[in-house]
């Protein structure tokens, strides 16, 4: 077994980020789009923590904390908006949001 280095973590982060982007592009349900954005944020957090560890710098971990705080507030506001939208239209698909079609 070879030693696990920074590159391993960056490759893992790339794979997770790609999975999240595929989710963002192919999902129509807004709730599942939110799940995909959580995957994106987590992928970046892994990269931050790995760089923080291998360079002996705490800044990466600090940024990961702020990313987590932003994710938490995004969920609170986003879910509130989704609930209001669902009460009005009975659906949270992206198709229902195209009301400005000319």
């Amino acid at each position, binding site marked *: *077994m*070879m030693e*696990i280095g920074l590159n*391993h*973590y960056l490759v893992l*982060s*790339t794979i*997770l*980020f*790609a*999975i*999240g*982007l*595929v989710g963002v*592009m*192919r*999902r*129509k*349900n807004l709730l*599942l789009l*939110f*799940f995909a954005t*959580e*995957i994106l944020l*987590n992928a*970046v957090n*892994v*990269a931050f*923590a*790995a760089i*923080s*560890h291998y*360079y*002996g*710098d*705490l*800044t990466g*971990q*600090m940024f*990961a*904390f*702020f990313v*987590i*705080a932003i*994710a*938490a*507030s*995004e*969920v*609170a*506001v986003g*879910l*509130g908006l989704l*609930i*209001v939208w*669902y*009460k*009005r239209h009975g659906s949270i698909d*992206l*198709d229902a949001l195209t009301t400005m079609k000319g």
Partner: protein
Amino acid sequence: MFEAVAFYLFAFLTIAMFFIVVTTSQALFALSALAAGMIFISAFFFILGADFLGAVQIIVYTGAVMALYAFGMMFFDTTRDVKEKQGNKYIIVGLSTLAAVLVVVIFAMPMVSGNIVALYPGIDGVGNTQEIGLVLFTKYLIPFELAAIMLLVAMVAGIVLAGKKMDLSITLMNEAEIEEEKNKKVLS
């Protein structure tokens, strides 16, 4: 050796879980797989020596965010299958990979140019949690307070948006009152 085994195991598990999240047609499966993936991600933080970050990941993501999603899903009709966007699969996968590689290149640029300097190096003789506290409450105090204000604003927004008509109980109203409520607009 041990680290390598742990890394590959958790890498496989995380990728599998997140793959389920983006491919399954059941919203409940996606929710459970996402919660499991978040826990597996925290294992990487523990491997990397960021103990506090790992604990925060479990508490905030799995404890708060996923619980919030679970409660939110009770408002939506999640029993039916999720419709998918019909697009060119190769274009989607190609664009995603390209964008992900771009992100890693952005991360790797300072290392390639070699001018990376540890701004806040770890302090000898103290644990990770104490280091985090020392840096967070000296150099990052203002962002920390701003994050607190942002969370407060998000909480107020969540209550205002989702809490409309929460004081009404359908079981306690008679038919006429329910009809009257139905005719009103939800957002007034």
